């Protein structure tokens, strides 16, 4: 037999990676194999990819303007060939508004995730690693935030900061980091006394270096899973604030605000509130399925490591 060149798969799954890059890619590939074995997770991933695509291409895909309606001739039309998902009370095309609204939903979700997750991670790992009074102070603050119902606390913050989508994002981010801090602290406590952390201490590493380079990577996978699962909750909270008139303000095509404006006609013109509601449902479901799949693929406890 002549020596066969490695297929790409064999190269990725090699037990003897020759470079840093190959080792990292191989690890990612194994994660992908585990993730893609889960049919539902793939559906979730597909929904989220479609959601991202729609948000990116809203300008191309939309058939009408999301802001300018035809008040005279097209109020509250049912779904039909002209307006695929009907029109609302101001004669605006709901299909186009949903497409543009996906941008706002994405904006909220991404911003909340990149504000709340790092705060939670930092608070949790520092509290867990430092212990003592630092731990006590940080965790009592976390407890105070956890003691309030999320939506009520967000409402209070928005009421204080003033309505608007940016303030809604800040309010949701402020209220959603405590669970991440709890998770990160729990993970930190399980690894802080392990020999591999002791070994780095013995190399003279500073506490900051140990937390950032050795403990945080271990907390990251469970945190990513939790954030993904929380995405649905974030969308719902943002929609809830929008619905109560404290989030996105008209005429922004934010999905929660759209439901709020459609509720007056919900019995006769169901599509005005029903379509954005359905959009929220689909995207939330997508994030939940994706999160479940990521948990199976990333969770260090379920794996062989």
């Amino acid at each position: 037999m002549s020596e066969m060149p490695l297929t790409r798969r064999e190269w990725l799954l090699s037990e003897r990676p020759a470079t840093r890059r190959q080792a990292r890619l191989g690890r990612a590939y194994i994660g992908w194999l585990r993730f893609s074995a889960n049919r539902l997770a793939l559906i979730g991933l597909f929904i989220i990819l479609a959601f991202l695509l729609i948000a990116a291409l809203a300008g191309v895909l939309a058939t009408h303007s999301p802001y300018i309606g035809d008040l005279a001739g097209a109020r509250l039309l049912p779904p039909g060939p002209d307006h695929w998902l009907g029109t609302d009370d101001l004669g605006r095309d709901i299909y186009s508004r949903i497409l543009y609204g996906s941008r706002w939903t994405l904006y909220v979700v991404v911003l909340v995730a990149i504000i709340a997750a790092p705060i939670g991670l930092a608070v949790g790992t520092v509290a867990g690693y430092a212990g003592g009074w630092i731990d006590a102070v940080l965790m009592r603050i976390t407890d105070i935030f956890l003691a309030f119902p999320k939506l009520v606390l967000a409402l209070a913050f928005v009421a204080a900061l003033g309505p608007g989508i940016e303030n809604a994002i800040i309010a949701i981010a402020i209220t959603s980091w405590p669970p991440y801090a709890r998770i990160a602290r729990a993970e930190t406590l399980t690894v802080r006394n392990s020999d591999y952390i002791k070994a780095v201490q013995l190399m003279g590493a500073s506490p900051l270096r140990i937390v950032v380079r050795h403990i945080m990577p271990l907390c990251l996978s469970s945190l990513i899973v939790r954030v993904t699962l929380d995405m649905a909750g974030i969308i719902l909270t943002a929609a809830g604030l929008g619905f109560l008139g404290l989030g996105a303000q008209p005429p922004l095509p934010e999905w929660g605000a759209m439901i709020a404006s459609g509720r007056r006609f919900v019995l006769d013109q169901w599509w005005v509130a029903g379509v954005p509601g359905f959009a929220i449902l689909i995207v939330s479901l997508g994030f939940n399925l994706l999160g479940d799949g990521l948990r199976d693929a990333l969770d260090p406890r379920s794996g062989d490591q």
Partner: protein
Amino acid sequence: MSAALAVQGLDVVFDRFRALKGVNLAVQPGESFGLVGESGSGKSTLLRAIAGLAPAAAGTISINGKQLGHRRDKAFYRQIQMVFQDPYGSLHPRQTVDRLLQEPLAIHGIGDGERRIAQALDEVGLGSGFRFRYPHQLSGGQRQRVAIARALILEPSILLLDEPTSALDASVQAEVLNLLEEVRNARGLTFLMVSHDLAVITHMCGRLMVMQDGEAVEQLAAADLVSRKVAQDYTRRLLTASDGFVRSL
């Protein structure tokens, strides 16, 4: 001449439990010194206290004649390194061998990483084929070799060994012990080695100290242990216990 490692009147207290009670110890440069005793006798605690991982409540520790403060400085970690008992727990599960060996170099700002890592892997008998593997892709013996490479890459003069072979099976045990013996000869290292296996200690060490309940029972030469020239009853019982184990095999 000053000892490579000197411990005087060392107390370690965990929540009112005195794990070490006034232990004295002096290890000469280039010597291989053993610590034996049953589980809970404080031998691992002594190692950890020297390494700064367990709090010293009283007593002094000095390295090459220089007394250590409460906080260890970076220079200290270039003189003393440690190999842990469990090779499955002492390597970070998400880091490749390369990253593990890079870390001490990065912390101490030592350049020339490529060459040093390759050399360290060669020294412990692992080729460059192992360099980008994750710990879960290695066997127990290979992991322990990586741990030894990590300890040696800072070129310490003293190596603390906390039962470095007790988690390994017999044939691998011999390989790792031989490896340790080789690097000690090549670099003139000072060893302080904990084991509950008297055979390992007599093979590896010149002198040893027997410990019980956090106290030193006696110090003697390994040759005396082999020829049963022991002074204390406890040591005699320890020897009998280890013989009993051999007979029943």
